[in-house]
């Protein structure tokens, strides 16, 4: 059975699902929903699938998942992306999954305001977004002192996938990433993972491909 993802190319939460599927090697078929400007996510058909009208929505047979964090869990279940065994790591992963919702309601709101003209209390969204970035930065600084490069351990987990997109896209909402060296290195590590895919606003790492030699074509 094909796993379907109702998707929007500009949505960081949809990107989380696409990125997770690629990283975990789960085949996914995407269905583009013209949420902007078409407002198709609020169509009768979309609301029948997800009354909240949000994207992404994952459909696998009878299973319908409408919460991004649940989609990540579904795609990563049984893989190393769920984190190392043990209650501390499992709880830490859950903590950062919950935290990712704060990113959506701060940095995500600022981005929708600045880019898609969505009304918001922009000062409050940016201020809360900055606090979130500081929390992640402090966590990553501590993790590096422990010899661990990711939010919930030495290896990346769904926690990193859940937090990475809104962080990387913070400048879209007028929130600078300049003062966060640990976040910069963490994003670089994620962008360098096997299976990493980009989304508009998050460029690929061109340093991973060699400088082309002078053209030999005629």
């Amino acid at each position, binding site marked *: 059975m094909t796993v379907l993802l109702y998707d929007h190319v500009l949505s960081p939460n949809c990107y989380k699902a696409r990125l997770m599927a690629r990283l975990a090697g789960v085949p996914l078929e995407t269905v583009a929903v013209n949420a902007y400007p078409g407002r198709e996510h609020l169509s009768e058909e979309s609301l029948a699938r997800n009354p909240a009208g949000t994207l992404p929505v994952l459909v696998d047979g009878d299973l319908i998942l409408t919460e991004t964090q649940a989609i990540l869990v579904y795609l990563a279940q049984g893989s190393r992306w769920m984190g190392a065994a043990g209650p501390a790591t499992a709880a830490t992963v859950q903590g950062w999954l919950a935290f990712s919702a704060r990113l959506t309601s701060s940095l995500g709101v600022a981005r929708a305001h600045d880019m898609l003209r969505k009304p918001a209390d922009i000062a409050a969204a940016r201020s809360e977004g900055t606090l979130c970035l500081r929390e992640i930065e402090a966590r990553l600084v501590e993790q590096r002192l422990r010899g661990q490069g990711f939010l919930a351990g030495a290896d990346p987990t769904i926690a990193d996938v859940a937090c990475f997109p809104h962080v990387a896209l913070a400048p879209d909402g007028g929130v600078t990433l300049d003062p966060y060296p640990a976040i910069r290195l963490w994003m670089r590590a994620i962008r360098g993972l096997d299976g990493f895919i980009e989304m508009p606003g998050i460029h690929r790492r*061109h340093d991973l491909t060699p400088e082309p030699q002078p053209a030999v074509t005629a």
Partner: protein
Amino acid sequence: MIPDAARHEWYPVAMLSELAPSFAQDTVLLGERLRISRDAPDLPIRITGPDGARCAVATRYGHLWTSPGGPKAGLFEIPEAAQPGRRFVDCGAVRVRCSPLRAVENFLDVAHFPFVHTDILGAEPHTEVERYDVQVREESDEVWATKVRFFQPMAARSAEGGIVTDYAYRVPTPTVALLYKTCPPRPEERDVIAIFVQPLAEDLCDVWPWMALFDDTTPQADLVQFQQMIFLQDRSILENQIPRLLPLDPGLETPTRADLTSVAYRRWLKKRGYTYGAQTVPA
């Protein structure tokens, strides 16, 4: 104070499909607040400036157009918009913290494709921009670039595999740019892709991409999202150019042969005295 040269051009201020049968809403153009309204479904749309004066109104190419100082001429023609069989795709506005002129100039550029639209509109090592033709057409006073050829891995939503794409570019008015490119399903025709730029301020704009394609099969959502993906890849570039305003005088930036369209566009702006969003004195 809006320079005179800017007051008499046409600008997009809304997407027609987003307007309710009757409505009243505000928008900003060239730093001034405009009121857009329609009192009843069968009445025409009215646009009034900050002094209450009525502004010119045109409803074409999926968008609502106005000219705050009264237009010098009618809205520019896009003959392809009247061609039977074309599909028109509105893509919605994307707001960008950049000069409206920088947004147009970026649209006229192919050399950035391999680095900004990697594996879609371009890819290393196919980075060469061959010589192409640029002119200001006297009769229409438009900037045109023709015979622009570039290798593209995935030129359109309907494309399969890489092709050398033929482009022509056209600037009919300072904040509008169109391109004509190889249409994969109909080799004898050209797809038309445009950006209609609404300057909110000298360093802030709403960009309305719009397309007129021959494509009967691709779902609308895929077409819209392909174009949004491309434009959003440009946005992080446009918000990080220094200075924010487009330099019209040579010296601050370094054009090469690949930038001939940009050079012609900047000269054309300078000749018309179009300085809104431009930096005219070297920093």
